[in-house]
């Protein structure tokens, strides 16, 4: 019986190791397989121009997803990021009009300030007023949309200054798009913040076990409030970059981006229950969703079918994660 038991034990351990491996690297493996398959069918997929476009697109979605990762790690959710992105984009575009004659930095700061204000509102609602995150951020989504429409009565804002447009469409050295540089810098800062600072460890602690975090002397309200502020600011930055890229302020900017951001975070292995997740996983999630979108476009799959495929990918990712934690 002893031998039987040892065999059973090692088999169970191996199965668990396999599950852990899939949970940890499943998204990355899926991304690599997908890139290989699509590039075999459409070699243009891995061309420099296409890769650059994909990274540029990823950098905007990525800012939202990185902010969302912080929020999800505390066990919360931010449904307002898409609306904040639109709102910040419009307000920055308003100040970036040629007729306003303002330097680009003013427009950027106004946009980011909008994100800061709405993010703070979210943070106070969720952390201090104890409004459930889902409801609180749903409310602020509506408020942000209203602020967007009120600014120009839902009309687009054209004729932006050249210096502002450079933020979204400019190239460093004629090769590297500015949004990619901005995203890379933000990502690096967030990596350091999450993994190398006390703040980051507290974010994990609050999401993992809020009670224990509180008795460990962590100000959990402050931590929760700050992740919403961070999420708001990053969403606003994404909005500013989008306005600069499309060279006008458009009221429906950011619509539906919140669901994409949540999907990227979940695909990356971050648990919506909090306490568990990784930023590099979110980066993989971002790339997976962007590659999927671009690849399906190239393969001529219709937009409506693409939505279905994306839905299945998200469900698969969560399912794998749940199975591995069983």
């Amino acid at each position, binding site marked *: 019986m002893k031998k039987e038991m040892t065999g059973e034990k090692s088999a169970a351990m191996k199965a668990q190791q396999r599950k852990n491996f899939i949970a940890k690297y499943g998204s990355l493996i899926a991304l690599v397989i997908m890139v290989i398959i699509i590039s075999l069918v459409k070699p243009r997929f891995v061309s420099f121009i296409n890769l650059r476009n994909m990274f540029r697109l990823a950098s905007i979605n990525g800012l939202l997803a990185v902010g969302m990762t912080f929020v999800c790690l505390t066990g919360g959710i931010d449904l307002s990021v898409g609306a904040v992105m639109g709102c910040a984009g419009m307000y920055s575009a308003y100040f970036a009009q040629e007729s306003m004659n303002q330097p680009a930095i003013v427009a950027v700061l106004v946009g980011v300030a909008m994100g800061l204000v709405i993010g703070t509102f979210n943070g106070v609602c969720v952390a201090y007023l104890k409004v459930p995150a889902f409801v609180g951020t749903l409310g602020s989504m509506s408020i942000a949309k209203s602020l967007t429409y009120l600014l120009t009565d839902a009309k687009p804002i054209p004729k932006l200054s050249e210096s502002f447009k450079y933020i979204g469409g400019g190239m460093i050295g004629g090769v590297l798009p500015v949004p990619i540089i901005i995203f890379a810098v933000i990502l690096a800062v967030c990596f350091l913040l999450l993994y190398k600072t006390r703040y980051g460890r507290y974010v*994990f602690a609050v999401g*993992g076990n809020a009670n224990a975090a509180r008795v*460990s002397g962590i*100000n959990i309200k402050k931590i929760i409030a700050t992740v919403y502020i961070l999420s708001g600011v990053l969403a606003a930055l994404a909005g500013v970059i989008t306005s600069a890229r499309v060279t006008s302020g458009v009221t429906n900017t950011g619509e539906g981006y919140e669901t994409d951001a949540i999907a990227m975070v979940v695909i990356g292995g971050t648990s919506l229950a909090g306490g568990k997740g990784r930023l590099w996983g979110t980066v993989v999630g971002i790339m997976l969703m962007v590659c999927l979108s671009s690849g399906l476009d190239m393969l001529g799959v219709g937009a409506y079918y693409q939505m279905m495929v994306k839905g299945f990918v998200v469900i698969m990712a969560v399912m794998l994660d749940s199975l591995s934690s069983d």
Partner: protein
Amino acid sequence: MRREVLRMERVTCIGQGRELLNNFNFQMFEGEVMGLVPLDSYGLDEFIDCVVNNRQLLYGRVYIREKLVNTYEVRPRAKNNVYSILKDENLIQGLPASDNVFLIREGYRGFFINDSIIQKQLKRLFLEVGMKINTKKRVKELTIFEKYILEIIKADVGKADIVILRDIGSSLHPEDIEKLKTVVQYYADRGLSFIYISARTEELSRLCDRVSLMSHGRIIKVLEHGKIKDNLEKHYFFPYQLLEETESGAREEGQKIFRCENVWFNSIQNMSFDVEKGECLLVHDYNNFDWKDFIAVLSGEKPRKGRIWWENKGRRNARRDIAVILENPVETMLFPQMSYEDNLCLNLDHRIGQLWWSRNKRKSIARELTGREITCKVKDLSLKEKYELIYNKIQLQNPKIIFCMFPYRNVDVKTQQYTNKFLKRYLSAGIAVVIITLDMMEGVALADRILLFGKNYSRMIFDKEEFEKIILKGSEVDSLKDTTERKKNDKK
């Protein structure tokens, strides 16, 4: 001949890479109250999981009412009709008691609900056991004792084969335990079988027909009713008690380091006490304070009245001079997704700069403390290692005072001793320890002073010697209150 209700034959289960139940044999009969004493923590959860959920077995068979329900060959999907009571987790707090008993159960097929009928029925069931409750009350408005009785009634209504009572005596007052005995006996006489899990001799000898002793995942002895108390104390608990007899040093008389002055906050009403440097204060609560409210005040919530003071108190507990060890800390105080060293160092960053920048620094602290490299996930640690992690973490924090919430509730004898070992270590380092408990005899060995919060917000403080004299005289809790009220009623 009595009918057999549960038989476990050579049951073996593995978990976390070790055998948690090892050739486990167990047998009980209809209408029997079988005690189960976990001398260590091996396999207790797995035992319950096997009986309730038909956990996967590595070897062995489980029979309920002489029917094979689980075997190592095939794992059945269905759960058994076994009702496990640990705290009030089976009840829906927001619903009335009657709904919980009659409607919220498997197999209920009614569509229209007549509230008055089910309330009358519940009232009758309570009267049968000699109790009266307002059946319209929501569960959250009931006392903890009423909730337990409600759960036992629910189990009986659901025709449970076995009811598992998991250390529920630890959250009851002595007079309630007496009532519990009546209720358990009433249902046992009607054929309901109980497994009473506890490490308390008094309760076991009062409530149980037989007691099984469990150690290292096996039943090592079954004691008949008449032999429970003597045998447990002489042969099984005595070696643990011997280990207790050591002094806690480094106590400095008179220097107050913590004061709670007339604090009112939710369930906490007019609470006052103080703590001296390096002393062990045992707080025994008869007043049903919700200690979560006290923790909230410690964590920075503003009390409605009164104040809390401690040395170097800032706006919050920024220097971490106050530490709290929650009840059942291995479940409530660990961060399972974080590494061992991160868990260990979480309360240390106010003392060491750049701690989170360097993983090697954290690892070396962990290595120095444990003497080895621990690479496995926190959730895969053994129970002892988890306790070690929590207590070492608190030691690294180096607080001035530690509040230990119900450290002896729902733990085995070994863990009780292990907890005491660490508490002694804190005390000898000059750290004050406040132990919150519901059982008067728990923690007395460590205590320098004993504080009782009586009903109606009265309170009494004793020195250890004085308290022991009173206990030796054999007086019960009520008479103890009367005699000491005259002598040492603290009117601060």
